[in-house]
């Protein structure tokens, strides 16, 4: 159904509608050889040309820089957090509450990122040196992250990737965990693009755990350590309630 002009009753060869491609070129401001007499008389062709011209006029104000970009990843994290806390408190709220509870995105974590970069450089150097000079003896630190509380929590802690004889392990130490009511806390590694995640296991009593990292997992991709609050509900997926998060300085 590739229409090249309007069709309909009441038109013979002498009263042919304008070619639609030509009307589009006309709207683009090009010089087109078309039946101007018909165009002047035909409301259908005129309105088509006019509506395309409006599109062209707006397009002329568009610049390549107007291409939409995705918002930073922390925007979605904050939205998910709010969705999760809405679900858990199970109450409908209005716009006023949205304004009141919105999580400020400005300047969060910025000082830590700078520090992490410095620490990363420092340990990167040490690890590089130690890998060369020692055959596997004691666990060596491969990467680490400070775990910072997500809104609604006051838990914090550290995560460290250690190279051991048994492969890489993730050691998580948390302080200030809330009491786990009918549930537990689970450790995840999430990609920096947040498009994939892997569960490593549960946090033990006292907030510490040491979990094997599957061999072959690309830690530079799965660089975000996340600890979630889970219920004993048989659902193996992430509850979307994250307690702490931090990015490994891989």
């Amino acid at each position: 159904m590739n229409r090249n002009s309007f069709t309909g009753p009441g038109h013979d060869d002498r009263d042919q509608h304008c070619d639609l491609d030509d009307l589009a070129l006309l709207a683009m401001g090009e010089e087109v050889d078309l039946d101007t007499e018909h165009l002047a008389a035909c409301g259908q062709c005129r309105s088509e040309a006019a509506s395309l011209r409006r599109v062209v006029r707006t397009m002329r104000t568009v610049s390549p820089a107007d291409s939409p970009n995705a918002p930073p990843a922390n925007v979605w994290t904050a939205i998910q957090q709010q969705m999760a806390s809405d679900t858990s408190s199970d109450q409908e709220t209005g716009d006023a509450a949205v304004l009141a509870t919105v999580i400020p995105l400005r300047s969060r974590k910025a000082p830590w990122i700078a520090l992490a970069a410095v620490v990363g450089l420092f340990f990167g150097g040490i690890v590089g040196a130690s890998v060369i000079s020692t055959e596997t003896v004691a666990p060596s630190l491969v990467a680490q992250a400070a775990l910072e509380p997500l809104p609604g929590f006051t838990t914090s802690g550290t995560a460290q990737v250690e190279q051991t004889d048994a492969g890489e392990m993730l050691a998580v130490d948390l302080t200030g965990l809330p009491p786990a009511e009918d549930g537990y806390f689970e450790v995840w590694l999430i990609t920096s693009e947040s498009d994939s995640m892997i569960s490593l296991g549960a946090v033990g009593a006292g907030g510490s755990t040491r979990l094997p990292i599957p061999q072959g997992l690309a830690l530079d991709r799965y660089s975000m350590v996340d600890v979630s609050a889970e219920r004993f509900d048989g659902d193996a997926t992430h509850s979307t309630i994250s307690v702490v998060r931090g990015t490994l300085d891989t």
Partner: protein
Amino acid sequence: MSEPFRPAPLPLSPVDPPAAKTDADQEITERFVASVNGDPHISANDVFAEVYRRWSPLVFSVARRAMNDENEAGEVTQRVFISAWRSRQGFNPTAGSLPGWLLGITRRRIADRWSERKHPTSDTTDSVPEHTGDLGPHDPRVDQVIDQVVLADELDRLGPPPSDILRLAFFEDLTHGEIAERLSLPLGTVKSHIRRSLVRLRTRLEVARDEP
């Protein structure tokens, strides 16, 4: 035991084939409506993540242009999607489109931010004077920004060759004859791509303005 590995319902960059774009938007809308209506086979969170993935770049980019500040645009985007999540029961697909609804919320959240700038509760004095005057949700400047971002989005999503053809036409001011020569395409092909793309851009503008 937990499953060891699974994809998460979190934002990815769009990779849909260009031809399926409109259908894909329609499909997301239908799933969103089904999840709101309590379809037990659809996870409301997963669908909302899809909605976010598809339309958050539009919302964010409109907000960035309106606020002229990345951080504030992030906050507006956050507010828009939290508002959308909380009022999702109120979306009526027969009264308007899903992007139209989201962009309607975007207008209101931008208007909120602008009025907060005018009546700051805390110390937010940087870069205020640009937006003064009486600014409601239907400020024509926001309308214009929305139109521009919607068109730029669709231009990206047209895919080659139509996107290349339109870019040459609009950003380099070439005639269809010059474009045909540049891309070694038949004149008729270029002409019909121009028409079909303009029609699609027109549809996009209509959908975006279709606020319930």
